[in-house]
């Protein structure tokens, strides 16, 4: 788009009135996301794929601010004073700020070693784009499983009683026993459902012994396990806005308890930590918070 990106107004990006209630902002966001999805015929001959991707990024950026009660209030006041219009400072400074631009370039491995065969096949396939990764493996499948294999995997798992990973080579499906892949990993590499990471023994023990999980600690685990916010959001099907709110203990912007509970279960599973501990401790925190309990009347 135009070089003068500073003049972009988030309300114009999402095409909502500045006084639109929150549910309208959300609806506009879902609609905008569907509109600028890669395969939408309505874009044909008007916007190129790259332009559509830029617009999608802008839409995500706008919703990250307008979808969050606190950030939206800040943004509104900054609009009124016609000060700089990109108040991104209040977003928790995680690797997520880079995610917008570079998520597809993020390595799955802390120390990628191309000399090890088998464990890096997926990297030779085209980097997952935002829309492609929509069908990312569910929690039960290993991270190296390409999307198409996710459907085959449970059948195999049921038949053999073992978890297998299916790797794509030269466009054909090759079934390979998981056991044969694992030993090829560097010895100090751990594995969680969303990828591999370098093991830090002290931290491993600390996480295993931990019973109290709050937002910042969940973030710490996530960063330790090398899981980007983008990837987590796709795999867990939780909106990035909610993940950010979750990790910053921003209870006001969290959904009703029944949904929050589901989110926490997902989060625990994806990060490879005991979801029961996560649920019980975080729900306790949320319910104890004045903002959360008054919002949902509990």
């Amino acid at each position, binding site marked *: *788009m*135009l*070089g*003068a990106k500073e*003049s972009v107004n988030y309300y114009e990006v999402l*095409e909502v009135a500045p006084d639109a209630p929150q549910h309208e902002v959300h609806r506009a966001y879902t*609609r*905008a996301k*569907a*509109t600028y999805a890669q395969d*939408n*015929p*309505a*874009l*044909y*001959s*008007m*916007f190129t794929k790259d*332009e559509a991707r830029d*617009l999608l990024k802008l839409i995500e950026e706008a919703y990250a601010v307008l979808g969050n009660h606190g950030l939206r209030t800040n943004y509104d006041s900054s609009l009124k004073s016609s000060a700089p219009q990109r108040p991104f400072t209040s977003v928790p400074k995680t690797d997520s700020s880079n995610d917008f631009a570079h998520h597809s370039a993020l390595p799955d491995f802390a120390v990628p070693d191309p000399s090890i065969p088998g464990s890096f096949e997926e990297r030779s396939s085209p980097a997952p784009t935002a829309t492609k990764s929509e069908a990312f493996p569910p929690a039960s499948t290993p991270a190296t499983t390409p999307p198409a294999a996710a459907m085959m995997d449970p059948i195999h798992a049921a038949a053999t009683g073992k978890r297998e990973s299916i790797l794509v080579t030269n466009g054909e499906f090759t079934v390979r026993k998981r056991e044969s892949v694992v030993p090829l990993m560097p010895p100090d590499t751990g594995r969680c459902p969303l990828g591999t990471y370098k093991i830090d023994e002290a931290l491993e023990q600390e996480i295993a012994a931990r019973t109290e999980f709050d937002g910042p600690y969940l973030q710490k685990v996530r960063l330790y396990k090398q899981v980007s916010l983008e990837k987590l959001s796709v795999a867990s099907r939780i909106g990035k806005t909610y993940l950010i709110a979750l990790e910053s203990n921003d209870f006001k912007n969290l959904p009703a308890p029944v949904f929050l509970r589901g989110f926490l279960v997902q989060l625990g599973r994806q990060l490879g930590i005991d979801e029961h501990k996560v649920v019980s401790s975080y729900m306790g925190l949320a319910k104890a918070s004045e903002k959360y309990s008054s919002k949902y009347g509990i």
Partner: protein
Amino acid sequence: MNDFTPNPFKLNPKSAFGKTPTKSSKTPTAIWAVGGGKGGIGKSFISTSIAICLTRMGKSVTLVDLDLGSANLHTCLGMKIPSQTLSDFFSGRATNLSEVSTATEIPGLHFISGFNDALNVADLDPNNKQRLIEGLRTLQTQYVILDLGAGTSENTLDFFLAADQKIIAVTPEPTSIENAYRFMKSSFYRKLRTAESELGIQGLIETAMDSKNKLGIKSPADLIRYISQKDPQVGERLKEKIGDFHMHLLLNQVRTREDIELGESMKSVCRKYFGIESDFLGYIDHDNAVWQSLRKRRPLVIEYPYSSIVGQFLGITKNLLNPTPLRAVI
């Protein structure tokens, strides 16, 4: 069909609709144009149906066939070729446009045919074009509906831009979508050209377009934003000038739910691309009744008055007449 129920659209000159409402001389004639670039997407069908729906609402309407060169609107209406057509007006045999207007058997509906073997829309000279546009404004009916031809010839664009309500017909197919956008872009740039000569800012736009890659200008919205930054005053006036370039998207031949969402998507794309509001007027289902009525050479609204598409057309016409959005009251 409907032998047992009275047909509200039955042609009865003695009915309440029988009296042709005449326009009071104070209110100007409103011009609605139906365009869309691609051929065969139902422009003639849409303009005929909207025109008849308007007469059902007690308005007087003139339907004008501007698909010069391949005029066939008389067939849609189930008429013979009128003795007087637009070519008589252009050649000067008829001095007044109302002389070539023929009353149809539908009460309140008049028709101006563009039929002539030798006449092509591209050959229309500027004088006659101006005469025609002025003539349309002075017609004695409340509404004038222009059925435009396919393609993006300058004359077609000028008729489209002269209209008060600009309707873009589109079907949910890539070819139609592409041509609809092409048509929008062409008419938008034509509008921009007239606006820039009126404001005397040719230089500004030309410099912007010369170095558009350097400035990152990829769409009209970017261009307007750039001009507003350069000179806020001129930017405001330019926005005002092109502000009436408001298009109504009408989706025809809809078969699935996803097709309907295309309307909203196109609206958003237009807004992001042109930087101008447009709206999604509504959609018409794909229905064999259209084809059947055409085979019978009878307008659908008359032939199948109870079909769901007629309901959709009535809704769309109402929307055009009174564009207040319906809102649920909770």
